[in-house]
């Protein structure tokens, strides 16, 4: 086996982020900082009152809607809303539900009644179904689901009642900050280079070969729980997936928003580097800069 040379850099050569900057830099509030307010304000999330002053309790930017002042944190756990598409991992199998880790404060819940049974039958869940739960979803399995309901304590209730949701097959999971995922109408993207991407609102991004997603739709009657583990992903597809993963991490490193257009542009701009070069920090900043530039040109047109 050929051994490649090792590259060791010095800290003094480290590139300082952010190299990507907007024209107007919004004021960032740090915890404990005073927020300038108007009379008769209402206190929103991320703030607290000390005497007569309104102070920030998290680090973030100020959002003001009429008299409601709140601070939106830069880095926080995922706060679910109804209708969000999430990618989650099963951590526990309980009596009539699965506990899913979605990078939120509490584990999300997937009730047995919220999944499509294999065979697509619509019937009341029996006790036999409960015993077969582990056959559908085990600890460690990845699923794509939609938020159906938010409980009072903030925990999310998920459902996979559509053919496009269900267990995820061969692919790669990338974790980024939830605030970097833009809210769009469609979170399932089939990219022109042969890979498919699911941008979960909770920051979990799933990259798989395009055939993987199609297969799920074809076997619709099975409800998306059948996996083909024998099938080997071809080498070309694998390189596409690895390049996409590195591009997404490069964009996330420079705190850029992730959506289908930005990912496609980043992929195209990254073609002048090899896949392993994209792991170097200076190359990551370079790719992010080029993508930002191209997005600006788009807006200018």
């Amino acid at each position: 086996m050929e051994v490649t040379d090792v590259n060791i850099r010095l800290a003094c050569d480290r590139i300082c982020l952010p190299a990507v900057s907007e024209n107007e830099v919004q004021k960032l509030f740090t915890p404990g900082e005073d927020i300038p307010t108007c009379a008769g304000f209402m206190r929103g999330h991320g703030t607290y009152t000390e005497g007569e002053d309104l102070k920030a309790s998290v680090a973030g930017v100020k959002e003001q809607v009429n008299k409601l002042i709140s601070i939106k944190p830069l880095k926080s756990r995922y706060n679910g809303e109804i209708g969000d598409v999430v990618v989650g991992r099963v951590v526990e199998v309980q009596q009539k539900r699965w506990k899913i880790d979605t990078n939120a404060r509490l584990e999300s819940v997937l009730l047995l009644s919220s999944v499509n049974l294999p065979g697509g039958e619509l019937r009341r869940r029996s006790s036999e179904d409960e015993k077969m739960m582990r056959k559908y979803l085990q600890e460690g399995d990845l699923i794509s689901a939609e938020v159906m309901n938010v409980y009072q304590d903030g925990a999310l209730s998920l459902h996979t009642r559509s053919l496009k949701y269900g267990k995820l097959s061969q692919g790669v999971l990338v974790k980024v900050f939830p605030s970097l995922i833009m809210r769009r109408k469609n979170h399932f993207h089939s990219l022109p280079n042969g890979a498919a991407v699911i941008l979960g609102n909770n920051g979990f991004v799933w990259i798989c070969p395009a055939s993987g997603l199609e297969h799920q739709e074809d076997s619709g009657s099975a409800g998306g729980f059948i996996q083909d583990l024998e099938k080997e992903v071809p080498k070309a597809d694998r390189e596409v997936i690895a390049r996409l993963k590195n591009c997404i991490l490069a964009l996330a490193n420079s705190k850029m928003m992730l959506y289908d257009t930005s990912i496609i542009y980043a992929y195209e701009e990254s073609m002048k580097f090899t896949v392993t070069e994209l792991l170097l920090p200076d190359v990551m900043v370079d790719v992010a800069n080029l993508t930002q530039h191209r997005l600006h040109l788009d807006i200018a047109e």
Partner: protein
Amino acid sequence: MADILLSEAEKTFILHGVRDNVRNDGRSCSEFRPIELELGLVENANGSARVRLANTDVLVAVKCEIDNPPSNFPDEGKLDFFVDCSANATPQFEGKGGEQLAVELAALMSRAYQTRESFNLSTLSIIKGMKCWKLCIDVLILECGGSLIDAISMGTKAALADTKIPKVSVIGSDEGTLELELADEADGREEPLDWHHAPCLVTLNKLEDSLLVDASAEEEACCAAALIVGVSPNKKITTTSIPGHGSFLADSKIFARALNLAVDVGVKLNTALEAAIKKHQTLKPPPRGFLD
């Protein structure tokens, strides 16, 4: 180290990728992730180094003490390794959680430096049979993300390169007690150590028939066995260790292949590390530190 949950499909994907020599992030099976090195961060230590290997972060500091030499080697000094798994790295290291791992790592490092060829302990002797230098090498694990022992060994070698021992001379003996004097500024207060033969440890993870260098946390979760080899710059192996439950006996040829690969990778790693250390010592840049 942390347990990562993976689905069967993800593990299959990783396995097939390793067979094709294209890992999840596009690397080949024998490539390291980008490594960053900084020397001289800890000012009140005699030498220090920080190594960042993807998300593994290790800080190594060397402090010198005057001590009595061991009775069976009266003309040699001592090397003492101590590893601290800080709770910053993972919540599992809180309290006594990280103690077992720390003890294992310290023992492994001691074995790697045991041979006189990798580090000549007689250079640490002050007065034969009575006084010697003891180098306390303290390793602090700040973040844990795979290839931990690789980063620790690189950090140790770099910290030893950065270490300067004060020059000591003996002035007379008053009724049997010896007095030691530290050299003046004018005479040259400190002298460097001979670190060029120090070993670098390389971890190889075995996944079916393939061997992975610098496995990420997800890849480590799929691998059954690992082999740690200490390689010195002149292609000699100073120590080996097989941690965990896996075995290399399934295929007789794979162990020999693993040792050869480890020596090749180790030599390349040593060369790159020496080049980076020399560059740092010639440039003498201001400390960059932990904040970006």
